[in-house]
């Protein structure tokens, strides 16, 4: 796949709300997914998003739950990975994956 296709991919990807695997959730830009994606960033940021204070992500955001019971949600965006421990969020993602 060329870089050109990669850019197309990002654009089309961001138009879609979510792609779910077994415990893995790919989310669109934080602004596009509103509350759900913002909640992955953190509950505090989720509240901020409701007030339109969170800048939309320019790239896809992937949330990865490897073991739901640990409450660990790994959020990947750009070249970063942020590890959140939030049992409620992990539970909600797993519920959405059913």
């Amino acid at each position, binding site marked *: *796949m*060329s*870089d*050109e*296709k*990669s850019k*197309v*991919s*990002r654009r*089309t*990807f961001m138009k879609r709300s979510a*792609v779910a695997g077994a415990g*893995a959730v*790919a989310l669109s830009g934080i602004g596009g997914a509103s509350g759900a994606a913002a909640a992955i960033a953190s509950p505090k940021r989720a509240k901020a998003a409701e007030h339109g204070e969170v800048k939309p992500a320019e*790239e*896809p*955001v*992937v949330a*990865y739950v490897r073991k739901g019971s640990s409450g660990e949600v790994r959020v*990947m*965006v*750009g*070249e*970063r*990975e942020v590890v959140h421990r939030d049992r409620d969020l992990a539970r909600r993602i797993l519920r959405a994956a059913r």
Partner: protein
Amino acid sequence: MSSHREAPGISKDPVADNTDLYAFVSPDDPRTVTILANFIPLEYPPGGPNFFEFGHDVTYAIHISNDQAPNTDITYRFRFKTTVANRDTFLYNTGQILSLDSPNWNRRQFYSVTRVVGDAAPQLLAEDVPCPPCNVGPRSIPHYGSLANAAVTTLPTGEVVFAGQRSEGFYVDLGSIFDLGDLRPFQNLHLIPTPAAAGVDDTRAMSVHTIAIKVPKRMLTRDGSNPKDPADPRSVIGVWASASRRRSLIREAGGEVAEAGPWVQVSRLGNPLFNEVIVPMAEKDDWNALKPSDDARFLKYVRHPELAGLLPVLYPGVFPNLAGLKAARADLVAILLTGLPSGIVPGFQNFTGPAPADMLRLNMAIPSSSDPNIYGILGGDLAGYPNGRRVQDDVVAIELRAIAGATYPLIDPSFTPDGAASLLTDGTTPASNPIPFLSAFPYLGVPGNGFDLVPASPS
């Protein structure tokens, strides 16, 4: 085979598969060191219409340690992008390619070079550096050598770079070695004997993709000094290469892909054959994901290599002294994991401290040889493997001989190697490949073209 398809995981990802690594004092430019990192194993030159190329989704890196510890002190990162000029054709080229900007060349690659020194911010050295095309054939690219040479680029900071297809420099008789450790010149002595025969270079006429960089020595030493004294620890660098992919990948409809997350190492290489021959299969993928600084966990396999136990079984009666050698192989630990300290080989050391780490170790103060011996230090040539690695070094024979006990007297003079130990070879040499090495950067030969492929044949 050196490190081609050497682990189950990376064998399924050839674009990221680091196959060989070389580091040597440039013979025609002794103020510099050349480092070559090869990727994409066993390229079959006629393999079109989608000819081989670097991964735009891979970060390739060359790492240098210069602080007497297995740290990465300098990293050169290479990232590639691909362009398609004409989306309405299936062809790689729609006419002759006579220059690097030929409009007939449909699918091109460019790369960036970034340098990271210590904890400093990454420094972008160059962008949009062109790669040469693959060597399609004489009708498509009638002057391949000069065309590819035009892709040799000098960076504003003084390094010289090249990235593109090259002739495979590693020579080896794969077909015999993986057939129960057969070595054709000695197969009359094998457990399942057949008449002795000449070796077959199975990588002959194959190609690879090479990332080459020539760096002034002063830019590689920790204090900017020019290495003159072989005994000076500052003269020694450790070198390793890697390939990394993004942590997550989502496949969408239509072959589209979205990636996110940090870069994760999927392949690495220091000494030839380390992961291939030393590390057990169940740990090879782990090894590829680790750094050299993590290599203490593999120390036991170097101290007691599996192959040293197999040779006396596969060649009955040929290796009685090796069969009786039960002590930990401190000679192999020094060669592969720490470098040779002073006092072992007269006039030489490439010690980088006691921490075990698989890196190529180059003493930059040892001048290049005007008459290289392909057996390197074992052949009395201090400029060859395991002092770095040159393109012509017979690393298969050197490592076979070392594992068979030829180097054990370095740490225990009372040990007498078996007579066969210092004779072992798979029967291949640089002459097995009709494509010669180059006398100038990037040193690996012009890749064979798809039209004139010459298959493997006895040496």
